[in-house]
């Protein structure tokens, strides 16, 4: 059984379990069943993530497969490094800082080449997508302007929003980051298909649709309003709308170019999802407004002092019994996060932090995130790692 089959079966079982639970509850909100890994032709057409021209997509496909292939070729590297380090009297579990570990391993030609290849593919992935949109900037901006005024969902931009400095970095070395490029949403949308494809499949939004199916709902099954914090290009929000077509769904993000693309995408999908340029730590929504609040890979991109503020904001805007589902990488406080990282792991964290501009990621991973949720007041917490991925499954409910 290959990875795709395993994911498909897991997703199907999750979907069936959720559907039966919802239908059993009295007055439960309508749910639509779907299988992210066996979509109908119409669903495939709606969810397909492909650049406009074959050659453009072929280049991306190559870079993605290249990474998977080269990853396998470099598997013997650990043994080679252990041997080389031992000759210098250095153990793989030596006490070094993240930066020292990276500097030490980069002295070995095999490690340096592996790092170079990873970075070259990352840079080329972004530069190719960047060119697709910037080479046609005038035409695409005109399309965005048209979509800004179209529905069914609303778009709210806030030119007066004070954008926090912590959000202004070129995360993942994406050109312009999430706030500084007019096509940040589009670039992110196509880039996320290619990222780390050993972890997920997202050719047709399979990953986001699966998360929507896995999202826990309140015990009474009532899902009238949903909020996606740090929505990015809006795929989690639109996927939740597909599961709960009668719910009012909002996606918020600090980046105007992000929510513009998210809205454009929802308009093209004819989905009634609202997008607004707002901060996760200050959503401006009333107390108790939402039944479900979610986020996807938001927390590792925010400054450490912001985690608690965002969790508290989620708690504030949830109604009693509401469900909070913040999907992100594994942190301390999770049983799977055990043992000190060795030099290879430390070097990898440093490279990602310093050179892939994951500015806040190491601090996030060192956070007891489940503990923050408990401290804010969430109950019935579930904390686990998602098998085969580097994500953790953490969710909780606001007490009734």
């Amino acid at each position: 059984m290959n990875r795709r089959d395993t994911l498909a079966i897991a997703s199907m079982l999750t979907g069936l379990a959720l559907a039966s639970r919802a239908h059993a509850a009295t007055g439960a909100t309508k749910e639509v069943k779907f299988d992210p890994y066996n979509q109908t032709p119409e669903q495939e057409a709606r969810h397909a993530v492909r650049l406009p021209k074959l050659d453009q997509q072929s280049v991306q496909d190559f870079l993605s497969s290249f990474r998977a292939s080269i990853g396998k070729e470099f598997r013997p590297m650990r043994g080679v490094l252990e041997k080389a380090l031992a000759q210098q009297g250095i153990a793989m579990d030596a006490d070094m800082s993240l930066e020292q570990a990276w500097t030490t391993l980069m002295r070995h030609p095999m490690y340096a080449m592996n790092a170079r290849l990873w970075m070259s593919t990352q840079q080329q992935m972004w530069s190719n997508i960047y060119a697709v949109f910037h080479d046609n900037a005038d035409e695409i901006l005109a399309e965005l302007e048209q979509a800004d005024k179209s529905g069914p969902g609303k778009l709210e931009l806030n030119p007066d929003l004070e954008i926090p400095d912590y959000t202004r970095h070129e995360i993942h070395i994406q050109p312009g980051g999430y706030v500084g490029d007019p096509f940040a949403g589009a670039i992110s949308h196509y880039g996320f298909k290619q990222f780390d494809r050993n972890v997920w499949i997202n050719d047709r939004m399979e990953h986001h649709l699966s998360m929507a199916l896995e999202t826990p709902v309140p015990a009474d099954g009532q899902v009238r309003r949903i909020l996606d914090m740090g929505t990015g290009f809006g795929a989690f929000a639109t996927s939740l709308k597909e599961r709960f077509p009668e719910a009012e769904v909002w996606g918020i993000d600090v980046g105007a170019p992000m929510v513009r693309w998210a809205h454009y995408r929802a308009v093209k999908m004819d989905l009634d999802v609202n997008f607004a340029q707002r901060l996760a730590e200050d959503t401006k929504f009333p107390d108790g407004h939402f039944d479900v609040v979610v986020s996807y890979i938001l927390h590792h991109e925010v400054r450490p002092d912001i985690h608690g503020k965002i969790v508290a904001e989620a708690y504030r805007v949830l109604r009693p019994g509401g469900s909070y589902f913040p999907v992100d990488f594994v942190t301390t406080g999770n049983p799977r996060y055990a043992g000190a990282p060795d030099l290879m792991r430390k070097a990898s964290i440093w490279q990602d932090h310093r050179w892939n501009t994951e500015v806040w990621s190491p601090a996030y991973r060192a956070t007891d995130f489940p503990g923050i949720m408990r401290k804010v007041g969430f109950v019935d917490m579930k904390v686990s790692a998602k098998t085969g991925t580097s994500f953790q499954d953490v969710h909780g409910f606001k007490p009734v």
Partner: protein
Amino acid sequence: MAEVTKPAKTINGKETFAADYFKSDTGKQVWLDNPHIDNLVSVSVALGAEIWALKQRQIISEKLAEQKVFPTTAAIEGYKPSKQEEEDWDAERQGLAKRVYGWFARETVATPSTQADK
């Protein structure tokens, strides 16, 4: 690391909604001792992608020809692969990467005339 970049506020009169951001310095880094070597590795990866793009068109053209469809640009661009074909193509790309770039994963040893293991 924190060089502030100010993006264009408009393009041909259309608002961009882009805000100031901190430019990463990753693109300027030299990791393989000599900037030309770093650049050549990137060039080789880019060439591999271009080769695959050509090969992809060739594969689709052959599929169309087998179906007695003339492989025009529109027909090639509009070709809808099956999931099996997508998986087969991924395997081909990975095979290409392994054959051509697997050499980069070669274990080397230091000799008196080289300093492969620094």
